[in-house]
């Protein structure tokens, strides 16, 4: 018995791993409604708060634009403009935040089937952002870092992001491809790595989300299903996309 117990330990561990692995496969398989939510919280699909299409406030010059010059320091971002991007705490998804004249657009995506657009207004270094399908985020800005969480499909993802500058940052494309509306988002990290997801029928209760086609950051185009779509930077420093 004694001689076998280490083997039993290994086998119990392996059995536990296989059980959790199968449970994870079940969790990750798309829900019947096509919501792609595997977190079991897909009951909260009620569309709350502001729609994620952040075409509001195109005013670039309005508002107390106090920039800190080319390198947005903590206070520079705090008072108005800047871009943040990075991976979330799990490293499984990317987060980008663009702030222009205190208007905030943020995007979370895993480059696969989970993504969320949230938006709001910055008040005193604290951001409370909301999006469609119950997505929301809370972020605080300090020392050039944007730290907080975003809640997507009932799961909270923590992150701490550093500042980035063009050509890194957030890109968005809304287009009609083969008669269907699509909304794609790409996050270009400081190291140039690109992560993007694409929602088909983004304003529905349960859009089908998948991997976005590769974005060409020079031409700002991507080819989705044979159709070339154009992306626009969502850039807090220039105001593009706000």
């Amino acid at each position, binding site marked *: 018995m004694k001689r076998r117990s280490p083997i039993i330990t290994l086998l119990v561990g392996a059995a536990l791993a296989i059980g*959790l692995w199968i449970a994870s496969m079940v969790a990750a398989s798309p829900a019947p409604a096509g919501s792609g939510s595997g977190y079991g919280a897909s009951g909260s699909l009620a569309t709350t708060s502001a729609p994620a299409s952040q075409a509001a406030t195109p005013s670039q010059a309005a508002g107390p634009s106090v920039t800190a010059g080319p390198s947005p320091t903590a206070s520079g971002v705090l008072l108005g403009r800047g871009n943040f991007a990075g991976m979330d705490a799990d490293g499984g998804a990317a987060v980008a935040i663009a702030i222009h004249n205190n208007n905030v657009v943020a995007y979370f995506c895993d480059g696969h089937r989970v993504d969320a657009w949230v938006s709001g207004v910055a008040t005193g270094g604290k951001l409370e952002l909301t999006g469609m399908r119950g997505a929301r985020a809370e972020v605080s800005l300090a020392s050039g870092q944007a730290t907080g969480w975003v809640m997507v499909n009932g799961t909270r993802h923590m992150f701490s992001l550093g500042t980035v500058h063009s050509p890194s940052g957030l890109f968005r494309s809304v287009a009609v491809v083969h008669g269907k509306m699509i909304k794609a988002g790409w996050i270009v990290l400081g190291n140039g790595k690109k992560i993007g997801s694409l929602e088909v029928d983004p304003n529905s209760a349960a859009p089908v989300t998948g991997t976005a086609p590769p974005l060409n950051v020079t031409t700002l185009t991507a080819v989705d299903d044979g159709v070339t779509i154009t992306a626009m930077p969502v850039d807090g420093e220039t105001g593009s996309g706000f």
Partner: protein
Amino acid sequence: MAAYSGPPAYSPPPAPPPPARALDSLARVLVVPSLIGCLVALTLGLYGRLHHATGIAVNIAGFSSPGSVKSWLATGAALFAIVQLGSAAVMYGKVPRLTAPSWIGGLHRWSGRIAFLLTVPVAVHCLYALGFANYSTRVLIHSVLGCLFFGAFTVKMLILPKRGVPGWILPVIGAIVFAVLIVIWFTSAFWFFSTFGVHR
């Protein structure tokens, strides 16, 4: 349960360079467990690298995010690992003026089992949802050591029941398993708690 009879004859520091025949039998004892351990580490690494990370895995209720669940489980494993180190030191008579009580072997075995089982859900989430990643030094070290940990643990479990293993082998492998786990903890849970604060 029989009284604890002490670890397999561990006499002071390893003897001077063993003669060729001893080396030969040592290699025979170690080669199969080591190969299996390598295979385990390699399989985990390749799976993590080739499997398309889903970003999704089973979640545990009551925690704010998968990251915090994993950080707490990993912290639990690290604490039990420290019990492992302490109980091993007592078993090998390395704690002055303390003779090993009869239950120390049981404590060592059960703390090890619990620590190992606590790491399993964390590893499954890492491998299934996130994969083997290298986008920063911390993440690369974590990914490499995460795979090595299960290989090293397998080697230790496979060598444990073998007879004729030199006394210094188990402490060395145990120390490797312990050190790897602690570095994994520093590159994940410690980083998580120090970045986001200690909370559920």
